[in-house]
Every structure is written in C-alpha cells, then in structure tokens.
C-alpha cells in the first residue's frame, strides 16, 4: 500500500515549520529526507506517524502500517536484549526475534541487559525492533546515529531486504546510507510566516 502525503503543513510548539509538502512512497521504495538541523524533519516524521495532527493536508495509507523509530529507542535498561525484542514483537502480535537478532549482529548480546550496552549497540537494538514489528512502512529519524561503518552497512542491508519484500522506508538522515533511494530536500518547504496582520485562530 502506498503512503501518500498531500500538501502537508506541520507545526512544532505551535509554530508552522514546514508547509506544502507532497510525496508518495510506493512499496519497495525508500525516501530519504534531508535538510539542515532544525528545519522540521522530526516534526514531519512524527506527523506522518500519526503522533501529532497536521496543520493542513492529508496523510493517507499510514494507519496501522507504520513502524516508527525515533531519536530515542524505547529500550528498558533492566530487560535483556532478547526480552526487549520479544516484548515489542508481541505488542505487534508477532513472534520470532531470531531474524532481528541476526540482522543486527545481536546474538552475542542477547542476554545482556540493555542498560549495559554501548551507545552503538543500543542503537542497533533499537533498529532491530523494526524487524519484529512486521509493519510495511518504516519511518526512521536519524537511524545511524552512533553507528560505526560496519553497522551502517548492516542497517542499509536491512533496509534493502525490507524494500525487497515490498516494504517501504522514510528516513531522515544527514549521512549517505548508500541506498538506492529518492531524496527529498525539505529545505525549500520551510514555512513562510503568514502576514502579520492576519490574526486568526492560529494567533499568528
């Protein structure tokens, strides 16, 4: 199913940050969001994931299709790596975490408490969570933070495999992932402040 975003405007802290965005994300495709710090990528992704309502415009085909990976990983430091994954798998009504563990080279760490992982290992675990959700649309906010070169490649492989199975991915990142993906520069969509006299329901 295709994720379609039409004429979307998003706001953060009550202030519009991006406007007039439209794109479609077909199965098997990945879309990379780029743009300078603070332009509104995180805000956009949260809106697409349904965590906050759009100012205007529509997001279609997202309902119950999306797995979202944010800046923070949602890991419980006192649960082991395997327990963390099993939990997320069963929340999404699935089981079998072996594939996820293999995909991010976590087998050796499976019985380690998540709190005792290094920054990059935590991130790998956070990413492997996507594999156990079984959701077709991955939305990821700077997934490769703290990862070394090998792990970045591992991640790119995981995304490619996901695309190969008909999934799709929407990724905000500052680095080059080596994926064959469309790129959307969000810079040009920066919201222009409205006329100063136009003091309507939005108080702007």
């Amino acid at each position: 199913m295709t994720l379609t975003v039409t004429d979307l405007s998003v706001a953060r802290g009550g202030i519009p940050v991006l406007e007039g965005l439209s794109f479609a994300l077909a199965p098997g495709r990945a879309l990379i969001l780029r743009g300078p710090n603070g332009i509104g990528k995180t805000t956009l992704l949260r809106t697409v994931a349904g965590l906050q309502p759009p100012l205007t415009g529509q997001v279609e085909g997202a309902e119950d299709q999306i797995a979202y990976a944010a800046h923070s990983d949602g890991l419980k430091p006192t649960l082991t790596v395997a327990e963390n994954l099993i939990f997320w798998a069963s929340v999404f009504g699935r089981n079998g975490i072996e594939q996820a563990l293999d995909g991010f080279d976590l087998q050796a760490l499976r019985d380690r408490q998540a709190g005792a992982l290094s920054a990059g290992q935590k991130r790998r675990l956070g990413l492997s969570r996507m594999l156990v959700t079984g959701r077709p649309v991955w939305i990821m906010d700077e997934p490769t933070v703290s990862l070394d070169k090998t792990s970045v490649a591992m991640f790119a492989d995981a995304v490619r495999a996901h695309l190969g199975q008909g999934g799709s991915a929407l990724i905000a990142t500052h680095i080059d992932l080596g994926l064959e993906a469309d790129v959307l520069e969000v810079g040009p969509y920066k919201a222009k402040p409205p006329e100063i006299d136009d003091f309507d329901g939005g108080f702007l």
Partner: protein
Amino acid sequence: MSIWEYANPKKFLATTEKVMPALWVSSAVLISVGLVWGFFFTPDDYRQGSTVKIIFLHVPSALMAINAWFMMLVTSLVWVIRRHHVSALAARAAAPVGVVMTVIALVTGAIWGQPMWGTWWAWDPRLTSFLVLFLFYLGYIALWEAIDNPDTAADLTSILCLVGSVFAVLSRYAVNFWNQGLHQGASLSLDEKENVADAFSNPLYVCMAGFVLLFIALVFYRTGTEIRARRIKALMARERLEA
C-alpha cells in the same frame, strides 16, 4: 601468614569448605540441646508461667540481630579500607541472616508481649530501636539488590552501613528520650531468685552459643555462594567479551 590471605576468594572457599561440616553439626547440636533443655527441663517462672521458655529463642536471636549488623559494619570498614572483595561479600551474605534474626526477635517478642503486657506491640524504646534496625536491614539489602555493578554496590552499601550505624545509635538515644518503656532491662525479673535464674541461664547460654555458631556457618556458606555468584557473573561477561 596474615589473616588477609583469606581475603583471596579461592583460599576462602578452600578453608571454609573444611570447617563447614563441623560448624553445621556443632551449631545444630548446641541449638537442639539448648532448646530441648529449655523447653522440656526448665521450670515455669512464678510470674511469667511457661512463657519464659520463649527466652531461649528471643534473646539469642535478638543478640544475633545486633551482632550481625556489627559484623557488617566491620566487614564494610575492611572493604572501604583494604578493598578485599570477600569482605564486602561477607557483609552482603550476613544481611539476610541478620534480617531473619531480627524478625525472629520481633515475632517471639510480639507473641510474648501478648500475655505479658496485654498487647502485641508497644512503642517501647528497645522494641522501637529494633524496628528501626529492621528498616536499616531492609534498606541495605534493597540497595545491594538494586545495583548491578558489584563493586559499586559494595562501595555504596558499605558507606550506607557506616552512616547508618551512626544514625542507628542516634535513634537508639532519641527513642530512649522519647519514651521510657516496658521492656526488661538487663536484669531479668527472674534474677531475684538466684537458683531459678540459673535454671534458665544455662540452657540460654547453650542456645546463644548455638546461634552464634549457626550464624557463622550461614555467613561462611553464603559468602561462598556470593563469591561463586560473582564469579559466574564475571565468567559470563567474559564469555560475551570473547564472542
């Protein structure tokens, strides 16, 4: 040869292994003898009736409850000053024994209080300071359990033990000031009649000796367990490291 050699975990395990059987047997024998003697072969007290028999459990356990904390204080100091792991682990091993002793003292005291004072519990200074001691034990054990890194846990719990001891003593005085109580002082009511007191004191001494030995046996055994548990942790970590 200095006693610090036993601070080597391996040496400690080897040595305690040898004395364990003797400890178990002698403590079991002493406690059984003391309790049987006390229960079957002592007269009733003229005022307290047969309840006086509770003393053979109450006093030794109360004694050990305090002494266990004292031992933890000493081993904590040893850890802080000389950083011998076995010392820290011995403190950890002793704490649950101390709690059980405290609970036994509290429970037997409460059961005894019902006929003697007409109430299970009174805010008598001795009872109260025992309750505070119980709380210190709980906090101490909870802190050990809550921390993953064993060295950090050892450091923090030993400082807690030091600071806690000071405050425990302070509480004792505070509680004394706050309420003058009902509880027996060091002089038993039975002491008025020498011959009766003797009849109770001999089995009591046997029981106390038995409890002391049991405590030592338990602490040695549990320290061994803690040493092994730590080694397991270290080995598993190492296995992961190699993987």
